C-alpha cells in the first residue's frame, strides 16, 4: 500500500515537472501571464478605481465577485463548524 501511494505521488510529481519544461522562466517579464490581462490592472488602476494598491483594486473591484465568494467560504466554514461541534444542551450526550 505504501509503495502504491509512493508510486502515485512520484508519477504526479513527474507529470507536474514535465509540465514545467515549457514554462516561461521564473520572473520573466515577457511571460504571457504578465502581458495578457495584468497590464490593465497596473496601468489603469488609478484611472479606473482610484486605488494605488493594485492588489486591492483587483481584489475589491475588478474581481470583487471572487472576494464575495471568499467571504462566503469563510461563512460556510463557520456555519459548518457550528453545525458539527455545537453540543446538545439537553437530552442524551
Amino acid at each position, binding site marked *: 500500500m505504501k509503495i502504491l501511494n509512493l508510486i502515485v505521488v512520484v508519477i504526479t510529481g513527474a*507529470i*507536474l515537472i*514535465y*509540465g*514545467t*519544461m*515549457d*514554462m*516561461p522562466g521564473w520572473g520573466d517579464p515577457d*511571460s*504571457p*501571464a*504578465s*502581458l*495578457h*490581462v*495584468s497590464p*490593465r*490592472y497596473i496601468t489603469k488602476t488609478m484611472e479606473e478605481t482610484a486605488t494605488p494598491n493594485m492588489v486591492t483594486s483587483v481584489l475589491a*473591484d*475588478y*474581481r*470583487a*465577485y*471572487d472576494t*464575495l*465568494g*471568499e467571504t*462566503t*467560504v469563510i*461563512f*460556510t*466554514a463557520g*456555519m*459548518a*463548524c*457550528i*453545525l*458539527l461541534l*455545537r453540543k*446538545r*444542551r439537553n*437530552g442524551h450526550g
Partner: protein
Amino acid sequence: MIEQAPVLIVVIPLIFAFITPLIGWWRKELCYPWIILSLTLSTFCSVITLLTVINTGVIHYHLGGWLPPWGIEYAVDYLNAFVLVIVSFTSLTVAVYSKKSVELELPEKTIYFYTVFLLQATGFFGIIVTGDMFNLYVFLEIASLAGYALIAVGEEGAPMASFRYVIMGTIGASFYLLGVGYLYMTTGSLNMADLARLLPDLYGSKVVLVAFTFLIVGVATKMALFPLHGWLPDAYEKAPSSVSALLAPLMTKVSAYVMIRIMFTVFKPYFSIEMLPVTTILSWIAAAAILYGAVMALAQTDLKRMLVYVLLSEVGYLVLGIGLANKNGLTGTILHIMNDACMMVALFMIVGAIVYRCGNREISQFRNLHRRMPFTMAAFVIVGLSVVGIPPTCGFFSKWYLILGAVDTSQWVLAGVLVLSSLLNAILFFRVIEYAYIEPRGGHDNGGESLAVVREEAPLTMLIPIISVTAGIVLLGLLSGRIVSTVIQFAIPACF
C-alpha cells in the same frame, strides 16, 4: 429584472443564507419556509434564464461591469441554463422534502443545517453559471465545504466518511487549482471564452497538456469516477437522508457539467479527442465504472448503500457519453444529467422516507412494505424501471442515445457494456421490488393469512416531492424528444 436573472440565481440564496441564522435565532421554525422561498426564487430565475437563452441566445453578464478578460463574467448558454434549471428544481424538491427528516435526524441543529444546505445549493449554482475558471474554483469549494459538513452530521461513522471525503475532495480541488495555474501561466487569462480563444495556438505546449490532465483528474475526483471513487460510498451512505438526496444527484451532475465545459468549451473538441486520447481513455474508464458500480451494488444488502453503488455506475454513464465524443453520445450525457438527477433524487428521497417510517434500510426487511407505504413503493417501482431503462421512463432515452452514440462510432464493446448494465440494474431493482411486493406463502392456502399491516405512508412533505419527481420521470421520458430538439441539440458544441 430579467437581465439580472443569471446573477440573481446565485445571489438570492447567498443573501438568504447569510440571513438564515438570524431568522433561526428569532423563530426556529421559519428557517424551513425561508429556504424554500429562496430556492423557489432561484428556480424561477433559472427558468427565466433558460427561456431568455432560448429566445435570445447566449447571455453574457459582466459582474461589476468589467469586461471579460479583466473582470468576472457569467456566460450562460444552452448547456448551463439547462443544468441550472435541473439543479435548481432538484434542490428545491429536496428542500421541501427535508422538513421531516431533519426534524427527526438533527432536531438540535435545524438552523445551521438549513444555512449550510442553502450554501450548498449556492455553491452548485455558482459553479454552473460562471464563465471564469478561478471563480468556479471558489464556488466549488463552497459547495465542497458545505458538503463535508452536511455529511459529517450523519449517522454512526459519518465523520470518518466525511473526513475521507475532505481529503479526497481537497486533492481534487487542488489538482483543479493547479491546472488553472498552469493554464494561467501560459495564457495569462482565467476567462473560459478567452482561454478558448488563446489556447489553440498553444496546444503543443507541455504546460497545456499537464494543465488539461490535472483539470480532468481533479474534476473526476469530485465526481467519484471509478478509480477515484473511494470516498463516495461511505460518505453518501452515512449522510442524513436529505443530504444524500441533495448531494448524490447533484455533486456528480455538476462535476459532469464542469467536465464537459473543460473538454469542449475551454479546450476545443479536437484537442480533447485527437491530440490526447482522453476521450478514449475516459470511455473505457467509464465502462469499468458502470460495471464496477453495478456489480458492487449486487453485493449490498442495505438499500441506501446499493443506491450509492448504482450512483457510481450512473457516473459511468455520464462519462461514457463524454468519452464517446459524438453528437449522440453527448446528447445522451446531457439528457442523462437531467434524467439521472431526477432518478437519483427520487431514489434517495424514497430511501429517506422508508428510513423515516421503518427505521431500517435492509432490503430483506422490506416485506409488506407495499401495504405499509403504497405510494412510496409505487414510486420506487417506477423510478427503478427508469434506472433499468424500461421505456417510456426517461432513463430509457438517455440509454438510447448513449448506445446510439456507441454504435455510431462502432464501439461495440461499450454498447455491450451499456446493455449488460441494464440487465444488472434489472436484477438489482427487481430484487428489491420482489422483497417489497411479494409475500411468499407456503402451499395453496390462498389468502389465508392476510397480514394486518397498518398503512403508514410517509408524511406529505416527503410524499409530495417523491410523487412529483416520479411523475416527472415519466413525463420527461415522453418529452425527451422535445427537450432534445429545443435545448440539448444546441447545448452540444457546434462541431459535432
